[in-house]
């Protein structure tokens, strides 16, 4: 029996050690002085599951950052609560530059939807891409233009159904914004993610879908959907022949985006080191190719511009989501 007890103790100790080691990874670089930045591995948090667009953005950038900064950049997924779990986790970390995060557009939205998320908790380092919003109808839909769809909604308010990626998602906000601009009321139908929302439109269960261009452009090209408008100022590169909503008389510019941020209170030098490393990563061929192949727009905006941009978006979503 004692032999078994020893084995049990050994296994328990091993298990405890493993758990402790895992717990320590986060804090490995915490006490390092700022002048030697980076003095250890960088943890790159993403508030989404592995495998999604945001996660792959983080992973592609992480690879480039590694060669730029000369340390390991470890992607750490903290999904849950529409991203709020990961965002709140990052907001509470030490602002030493060894913890950074890729934050999607939700960082400017969740605060207006009863979550404790506030852009003021972060120092924004850069914006690295944008995904234009689009509105699309099934291929056999009678609606040929945005005006047709709006006219139908005017004739019977609430009868036109528009699917979106979920309650409180950027694409639900996109349909709201279109309704506001056109002065009509659409019936939003939230799904559990962008793909099922697009499927519902392909299958003809809803009249239209508002989704990112990365999800609608391929379906537009092989004739399963017809994109009626792109919600950008200039026509989008992925769909050069489709008119913008503004060109059709409805002033709607809305889209998803990703920024890179750190907990608020970053040292000035650390910030500029990270900012220039991210610029190199965001302009690298691997990253640009990846973003373009998924239909989105790669870009780089510096720390100052990005902070102003996020603040603007935060205010704008506050007004838009108030009458949800």
């Amino acid at each position, binding site marked *: 029996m004692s032999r078994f007890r020893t084995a049990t103790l050994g296994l328990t100790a091993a*298990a405890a050690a493993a758990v402790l080691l895992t717990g320590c990874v986060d804090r490995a670089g915490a006490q390092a002085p700022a002048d030697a930045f980076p003095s250890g591995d960088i943890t790159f948090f993403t508030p989404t599951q592995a495998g999604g667009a945001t996660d792959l953005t983080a992973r592609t950038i992480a690879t480039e950052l590694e060669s730029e900064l000369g340390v390991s950049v470890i992607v750490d997924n903290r*999904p849950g609560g529409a991203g709020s779990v990961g965002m709140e986790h990052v907001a509470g970390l030490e602002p030493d530059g060894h913890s950074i995060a890729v934050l999607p557009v939700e960082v400017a939205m969740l605060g207006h939807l009863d979550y404790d998320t506030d852009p003021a908790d972060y120092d924004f380092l850069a914006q690295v891409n944008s995904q234009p919003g689009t509105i699309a109808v099934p291929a056999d839909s009678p609606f040929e233009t945005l005006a047709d769809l709006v006219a139908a909604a005017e004739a019977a308010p609430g009868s036109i159904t528009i699917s979106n990626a979920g309650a409180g998602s950027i694409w639900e906000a996109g349909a709201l914004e279109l309704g506001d601009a056109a002065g009509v009321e659409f019936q939003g139908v939230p799904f559990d993610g962008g793909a099922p929302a697009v499927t519902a439109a392909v*299958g003809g269960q809803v009249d239209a879908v508002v989704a990112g261009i990365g999800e609608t452009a391929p379906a537009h090209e092989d004739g399963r959907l017809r994109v009626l408008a792109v919600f950008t100022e200039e026509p989008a590169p992925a769909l050069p022949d489709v008119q913008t909503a503004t060109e059709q008389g409805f002033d709607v510019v809305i889209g998803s985006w990703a920024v890179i941020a750190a907990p608020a209170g970053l040292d000035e030098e650390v910030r500029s080191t990270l900012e220039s490393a991210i610029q190199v990563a965001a302009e690298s061929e691997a990253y640009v190719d990846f973003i373009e*192949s*998924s239909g989105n727009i790669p870009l780089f905006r510096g720390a100052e511009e990005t902070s102003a941009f996020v603040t603007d978006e935060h205010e704008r979503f506050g007004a838009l989501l108030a009458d949800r």
Partner: protein
Amino acid sequence: MNDVIAGVGALLDPTILLCLIVGTLLGTLVGAVPGITATMAVALATGFTLTLEPLQGLAVLLSIYVSAQFGDRVPAILVNTPGTPASIATTFDGYPLAKAGRAGVALTSSALVSAVGSLASILILVFLAQPIARLALSFGPIELFALVVFGMTMMVGVSNGRIAKGLTAGAVGLLLGAVGRDPISGDHRFTFGIPELTSGLPFIAVIIGVFGLAEIFNQIVEARRGGSEAPIEQLGRWWPDRAERRSLVKPTAIGTGIGAVVGVVPAAGGDIAGIIAWDQARRASKHPERFGKGSLEGLAAPDSASTATMGGSVTTTLALGVPGDSVMAVMIGSMIVWGLQPGPALFVQHPDLVFSISTIMVVATLAALGLALVRMQGVVKLLKLPLNALAVVIITFCMVGTYAVQNSVFDVIVMLVFGIVGLGMRRWGFPAGPLVLGLILGPLAESNLRRGLLIDGPLAPLQSPIAATLIALSVLALVAPAALRYLKGRSKPRVDAEATR
């Protein structure tokens, strides 16, 4: 025919074989660790495979997808813990079989019928992709709601005669499923200000808690009381005998059929298919009373069904560009980056790719089957550990696996709490199956019903022929057995039991 040669020939590259082997080993391993699902494994592998050639990458991802379905049966049968949600229904009969000293036969049979389900469904992909894909598109929210309701009717079957207790557990599961944000309005429900709860109770943590941890706790309690229930030491024979093999045929056929159809439906996967197949095989069986108590038939149906969803899911994904399940949702992302946009155009632009993909899946199935049959010797060694050592190993695996799902300590706490809840349920005779079904199916039913109502108004479930049929079948499944008993009591039994199907 040229496409077949081109598609299969493209795989004759040794690096692709290497990718297949790596994927199969990885998939079997992650499948066997409770908590780490095929979706997660494929998602994590995506980070590495994006830099490979498309066929190499597909070989890794698809073989993980296929072989995880073999690995996850092992903990389900041996320690009552589903390795992934696809093997929830495997525990219903797999674990009782193991407790009866027939773990060897259970493991072998499970691997064999899983391979049959997988291979049969790949044939669908090869020959019927286009027509079947059209059927998939007619499954909107209201049809999905009706399918889920049909799945829920098996709460009665899985209660094993303790119907009041089973339905109580099911109702609690449905209530737990209401935790989180409202799927339509986004309002917080029962979240108590805990951010982790806004996306609902983490159901993988709950599954591991009420199945795996509760079982270990229960064994500890039993051992303290004088060890009435010995751990599984005896695995018995490995190979099913002739009569056993024959008994596998019918449930495997039922399971494969159901799995193929459920697989085609977008967003419905192996967990739902396994549950429906278990209940349908029970109704069709000559020995329904043995289901849930260690019936090989009750093992064959869900195991063949959940692997049979794979062909259907891949079919929907490739032919429509619509993800057939959560693994495929991740894979579509990779395929787009490789320039292989799934959708009707794929069959025109890359017809050879369909044959490459199905060949990869066939080879991966055979490799996973081979691995499943060989590795069982190692399993025996693990089970020869004494209970106290084994308990530590299993609890450690449960904790690490649960943590790994979302890198979240909260999930581990949920798992521990539900381990204790599960122990209580077991001591007082409440079955755990209905609780988990309520938790998984409740939110699916609610969100899809409400979407359907938003789109088509209050009569939506009756306006769709598919939904109306499925709901009628659900009512029949609940009412028919009781009505039959009543009729039999009054007059001579003249209705065949088969009619209850």
